[in-house]
């Protein structure tokens, strides 16, 4: 049976039974990276030696009779925004090229403690700013479904690694959709947990009040397994929630949605939405209804202002969070010739080290916070945030979950939106509200668009701390679709001509 197309859950069982060794599993994935990453370009950094050593350690512990957790020996691709000692963390930026952090993020440590085998760091839009990885300071990742198209962003590298079978698990961060939108356009599962449910300690900050680390996988159960390892209170993160992690694994295994009330957000559809995307969305709704859920329309009128509020709050926090990259203590330093002053060296370094999108957002944020403009811009945006939260509260008073397409279109082509920032921002229309309110949301693959054959994502949103509902609904949908398709969406890619280069076709 194939290692590469197996789910993490399956691999876990086969490792536990002794059928496979962690080393074999790690090696298979390292070989796959070697074979396809020239084309896919998901990884910024791969450390084969370290991965194999970690795998060997897991094998040794198992051989010694130790009881290991479900993710021990499972390979994982890590978005290059999480700190990890012994490896560079660049956040996709030239300004941090080569920086080796002296500490592990809390999540990195949890993964290591769980025996997860980190294969390497994945590509991303610079400092998580973007929806395509075209803003990476290094290169653009290619969508495994169609290498001329974007894999989504900012976490395109993690999603592409999953879709190219380079790893069964990945982690990312979601600030405005950076886990969910890539999941949607690559046919994978991506979850934004409740804000504060996963620790931000050691996760390079973009917009502190919005950033949420989360799990990425090819199946709902796999995402749940990863979610339950990642999540939990962290005393090092003041915004971390001190409450038990919801039973996401139980919900994923159950998938029983009979009697659940599902609200369709009126504002997420219509003009600007690709017809094929809307079609698959409606079909998925019909499936859920058939499984016993009640579907209602819900209006969240202030969601129309979410994009505007987000593109004020986020750049404001970004402009402050990215100030530390000043060439004084680490990272790039340009212009230190004995003549230039510190101020000039800061200017030159940041001018050279940041890409265009980063500069755009820093300037917008600087402006929005500046005296005289604070009330109209940042201040107003924070009020819109309140209104959006109220819309969610009202909606969740009527329904258990809200749903929408994850993003208005399928994967656009590389270069298509790079010169039109506003067009690029619209990819996050449906995902942003959940970040502003702090509730949880996930993207589940729901089919290929009839107009271009590219993956479509179905977004589920639930109230804060009700992350299990995402997995319950996601599992229900996934199960039903799998039975109709005879397998997962990505199995289709694996066995198609377009996915032949992935060399995993047909063997299940």
């Amino acid at each position, binding site marked *: 049976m194939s290692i590469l197309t197996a789910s993490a859950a399956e691999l876990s069982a086969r490792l536990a039974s002794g059928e496979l060794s962690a080393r074999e599993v790690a090696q298979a994935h390292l070989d796959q990276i070697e074979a396809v990453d020239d084309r896919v370009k998901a990884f910024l950094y791969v450390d084969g030696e370290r991965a194999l050593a970690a795998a060997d350690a897991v094998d040794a512990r198992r051989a010694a009779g130790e009881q290991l957790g479900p993710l021990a020996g499972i390979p994982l691709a890590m978005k290059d925004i999480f700190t990890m000692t012994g490896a560079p963390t660049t956040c996709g930026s030239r300004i941090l090229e080569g920086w080796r952090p002296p500490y592990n993020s809390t999540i990195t440590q949890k993964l290591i403690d769980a025996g997860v085998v980190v294969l390497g760091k994945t590509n991303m839009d610079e400092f998580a700013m973007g929806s395509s990885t075209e803003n990476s300071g290094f290169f653009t990742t290619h969508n495994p479904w169609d290498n001329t198209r974007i894999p989504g962003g900012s976490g395109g590298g993690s999603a592409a690694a999953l879709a190219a079978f380079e790893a069964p698990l990945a982690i990312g961060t979601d600030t405005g959709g950076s886990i969910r939108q890539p999941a949607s356009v690559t046919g994978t599962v991506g979850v934004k947990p409740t804000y504060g449910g996963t620790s*931000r300690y050691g996760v390079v900050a973009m917009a502190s009040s919005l950033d949420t680390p989360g799990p990425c996988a090819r199946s709902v159960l796999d995402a749940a397994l990863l979610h339950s390892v990642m999540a939990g209170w962290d005393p090092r993160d003041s915004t971390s929630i001190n409450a038990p992690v919801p039973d996401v694994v139980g919900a994923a295994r159950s998938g029983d949605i009979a009697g659940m009330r599902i609200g369709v957000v009126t504002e997420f559809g219509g003009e600007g939405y690709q017809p094929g995307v809307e079609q698959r969305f409606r079909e998925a709704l019909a499936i859920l209804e058939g499984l016993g859920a009640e579907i209602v329309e819900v209006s969240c009128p202030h969601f129309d202002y979410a994009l505007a509020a987000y593109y004020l709050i986020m750049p404001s926090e970004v402009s402050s969070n990215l100030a*530390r990259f000043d060439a004084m203590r680490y990272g790039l330093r340009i212009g230190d010739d004995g003549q230039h002053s510190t101020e000039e060296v800061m200017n030159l370094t940041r001018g050279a080290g940041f890409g265009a999108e980063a500069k755009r957002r820093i300037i917008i944020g600087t402006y929005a916070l500046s005296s005289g403009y604070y009330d109209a811009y940042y201040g107003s945006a924070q009020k819109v945030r309140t209104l959006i939260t109220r819309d969610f509260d009202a909606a969740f008073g009527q329904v258990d979950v809200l749903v929408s397409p994850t993003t208005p279109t399928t994967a656009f082509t590389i270069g298509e939106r790079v010169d039109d920032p506003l067009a690029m921002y619209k990819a996050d229309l449906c995902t942003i509200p959940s970040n502003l309110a702090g509730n949880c949301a996930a993207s589940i693959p729901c089919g290929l668009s009839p107009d271009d054959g590219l993956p479509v994502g179905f977004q589920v949103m639930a109230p804060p701390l009700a992350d299990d509902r995402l997995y319950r609904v996601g599992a229900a949908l996934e199960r039903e679709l799998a039975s109709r398709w005879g397998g997962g969406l990505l199995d289709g890619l694996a066995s198609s001509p377009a996915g032949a280069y992935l060399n995993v076709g047909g063997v299940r």
Partner: protein
Amino acid sequence: MSVDVLDYDEALAAFDPVLGLEVHVELNTASKMFCGCVNAFGAEPNTQTCPVCLGLPGSLPVVNGKAIESAIRIGLALNCSIAEWCRFARKNYFYPDMTKDFQTSQYDEPIAYDGWIDLDVDGETFRIEIERAHMEEDAGKLVHAGGSTGRIGDAAYSLVDYNRAGTPLVEIVTRPITGTGAKAPQVAKAYVSFLRDLMLSLGVSDVRMEQGSLRCDANVSLMPKGATEFGLRTETKNVNSLRSVERALTYEIQRQAAVLSSGGKVHQETRHWHEEGYTTPGRSKEQAEDYRYFPEPDLVPVAPSREWVEELRGTLPELPNLRRARLQGEWGFTDLELQDVVNAGALDLVAATVAAGASPQAARKWWTTELARRANETGVELAGLAITPAQVAELQALVDAGTVNDKLARQVIDGVLAGEGSPAAVVASRGLAVVSDAGALSAAVDAAIAANPDVAERIRAGKVQAAGALIGEVMKQMRGQADAGRVRELILAKLA
């Protein structure tokens, strides 16, 4: 330094000074404001830092609960209201000693606000209104290198030590202080001194100005007499001692007065105090800094319950005003006598001396006259003299016992200050005890009488005041080691 300064009295005749004092107190918590690094002075550079206080990418702050407690106690001691709900805010600006290029501070929601304290300066009481006391973190320490002065102006480069970054600070800001007139510099000094004593009694800081755990930025502006609008003010930094507070403000008042009197305008700017006795302007800025404050998203609001605040209020020591009133009553001092003691910075010393057995009046006398004079001469603070309250009490006991007189006592003090030991030891080693041998005394008196027949005649005639000259001679003869009162008795007896 050829900058015009107007004579102080002239300046005060034409202008009313308005003061504003910003004092930073470094808290003495065990660990830093937002991380567990040790909060201590003097270690090897960059050995007391971690991802959080270094502001490394991905790091997050967590508030030190003890720092909040100290800040609340400081606020209560300053008669402030304590916020029911407040937040930290980011103050954004770039500087190499700032690890995040923003300072986590408080902006429009300070933890304590609207307080006051009463200061006694030379018999006059001034009420200083406290606008706010808020929490913030300190930056690292810069050393300027490659130049000849160690100052920023001619440095070729700089070196940064981040040990101090993240140290908890409480910043206390006064409302504009008016009506101090010519006493403005003294009021400022008294205020800083008061805060220092208060922090020590609260136990929240070492408040050592020379180490930077108490810092003062002195703001002053001048209003022409009769005007209603404040003038433009300057802020003077690098004021590193109580004396400097007074001197720097005196200078600034004189300098600004000169500027204004000659028709010029005072520049609103930050100035640097030089111990040589003048201020110089900092680099002029084309525009005021825009700090782009916004609520700190990495921290959640601080909402001290009223129960907790009252619990903390119960931990406050007796506040200085109340303590002083109590002591004054216990000692039976007049207002003026107490004022003397407070002005000399001798309250605690007097109290300790009384506790060691001396009478309050005796303690007061020694500390505010003889010892204060010596402190002034040698340029140290009273508490820095090499004599303890217990030793002063011992000295007074020797005087009371007649072992030494006042004059001899001063020589004893010389010896104690020189490190020769306790008062009793000095008396013994220097042979300073009053001579009690009646024979020797009698002989000296006889000799003086014999040497001054006219004076003796006058005394016999009834002019007892004339005895003074004879007493003086006897004392000289005895090298001061005689009880003047006893000498007088003997003289009068012999000439009766």
